[in-house]
């Protein structure tokens, strides 16, 4: 078995058995249901839910992604530094297994395990909605939205959550991460310079706009493209399918760069 495969399997199994990986998203969903106005309730209200099943499940993807990614990032923030704290890292470094392969296995294994509750919640609610409205096609849209919008965003969050605590304490990373998540995803570009609605948008503005024709639950929001009077419009070209693809590739490239940075920092420390 390769070092990559072994560490992926081990990290996945270790992480998926952690109680907190399940408790945090569960509590988030409870809070989410308790407050009004979320799609978790509205999707099952014939008077409130969108008529188009695609809008329904894509809107659900946006809301769950925006919220559950925060717990996802915070839970992953101690994964890499933990090996040093527990004294496991020097033992693993003494093995012939390549550090890069181990890091990649840890990244994908821990991220996949932490994403399991998110996937279960999303597909669970989407399936219930598809049954409720009698439109199985909603599940196909849900699968597409998960692959194109949620997965790239989570891969980006996981890469930074592993790498950044190498250069700052994990609690500080959590504070800065949630601040960034709000600023870079939700803050309106008219209010202050922000990366929201640019090509680098972890919530997936360009794919949402072009590939899913999604313009908010009520069809009145803009998720990509230039915003009148906003700064950084140079990063907001008019949406096209090629730019949607580029936006996804950009998230993956930055994820890889963050992970490579983490790898270099670790390699320097053990030298």
């Amino acid at each position, binding site marked *: 078995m390769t070092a990559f495969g072994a560490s992926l399997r081990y990290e996945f199994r270790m992480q998926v058995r952690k109680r907190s990986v399940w408790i945090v998203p569960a509590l988030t969903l409870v809070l989410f249901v308790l407050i009004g106005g979320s799609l978790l309730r509205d999707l099952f209200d014939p008077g409130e839910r969108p008529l188009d099943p695609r809008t329904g499940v894509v809107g659900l993807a946006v809301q769950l992604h925006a919220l559950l990614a925060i717990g996802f990032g915070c839970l992953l923030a*101690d994964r890499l530094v933990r090996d040093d704290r527990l004294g496991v890292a020097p033992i693993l470094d003494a093995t012939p297994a390549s550090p890069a392969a181990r890091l990649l296995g840890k990244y994908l294994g821990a991220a996949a395990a932490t994403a399991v509750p998110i996937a279960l919640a999303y597909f669970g609610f989407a399936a219930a909605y598809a049954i409720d409205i009698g439109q199985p096609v909603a599940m196909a849209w849900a699968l597409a939205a998960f692959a194109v919008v949620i997965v790239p965003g989570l891969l980006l969050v996981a890469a930074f959550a592993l790498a950044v605590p190498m250069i700052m304490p994990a609690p500080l990373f959590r504070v800065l991460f949630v601040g960034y998540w709000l600023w870079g995803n939700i803050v309106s570009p008219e209010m202050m310079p922000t990366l929201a609605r640019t090509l680098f948008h972890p919530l997936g503005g360009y794919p949402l706009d072009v590939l899913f024709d999604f313009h908010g639950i009520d069809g009145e929001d803009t998720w990509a493209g230039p915003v009148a009077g906003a700064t950084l419009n140079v990063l907001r070209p008019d949406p096209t399918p090629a730019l949607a693809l580029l936006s996804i590739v950009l998230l993956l490239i930055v994820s890889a760069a963050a992970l490579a940075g983490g790898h270099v920092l670790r390699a320097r420390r053990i030298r």
Partner: protein
Amino acid sequence: MRPITLWRYEARRTGWAAVLGPPLAVALGIAAALAYPEPSDTTTARILLGGLEMAVPLAAAVVCSTLIGQDPAREVQLTVPTPYRITLLRRMIVVLSWTAAVAVLAAAVLIVTGWWARWPQNHGAFAGQLTWLAPMLGLSGLGFAAGAVLRSPAAAGAIVTTVWAIQQFFADAVQEHLPGRLLYLFATTRGAATDDWLANRLVLVGAGAVLVALALILLGRPERLISEEDE
């Protein structure tokens, strides 16, 4: 051991995140206010006060959520005459005192420069300090209690940041009902009903105190502290 030595030790145990978090939060709030492309006095003042109400309490609360579970040898802590929960409470007091010092200094600068008064719902220079104090105590109490229940800094930090983010993302929906308005963290700068402000602030302070008390009760059971934790 002299008290000052003891407090200095506890301050060191709280870590760099406790030291850097609050000033960084204030700096980010100021940066956000300066970045506004079409500045109007009211909006800039709102963002400046928003930094105090939103960023500063978050920095304190996330650190408080990591206090439990950081000592590598808790068994040793449990053998000393001072109960471990008192040690943890002492560290929490250190974190909150430092955060309060930074926040008071920032608020004083805003008051002297006139920015404080430019936000209409500032509630004065004295009672207005509840702008940062109430959410700091409420959210930090939540973080400390979550740490005591879960004994996992990652999970407790995740709960604090998620509650903070939900109140940001769904500000209107959260404040549709009275319980939501009373527990809303950002009532000064994003509040729906001005009349509820003082009640909201006092409820947040009370909620923080109740949560800390609950955490101390839980921490009084040493077997919880030395059993397997969610590492």
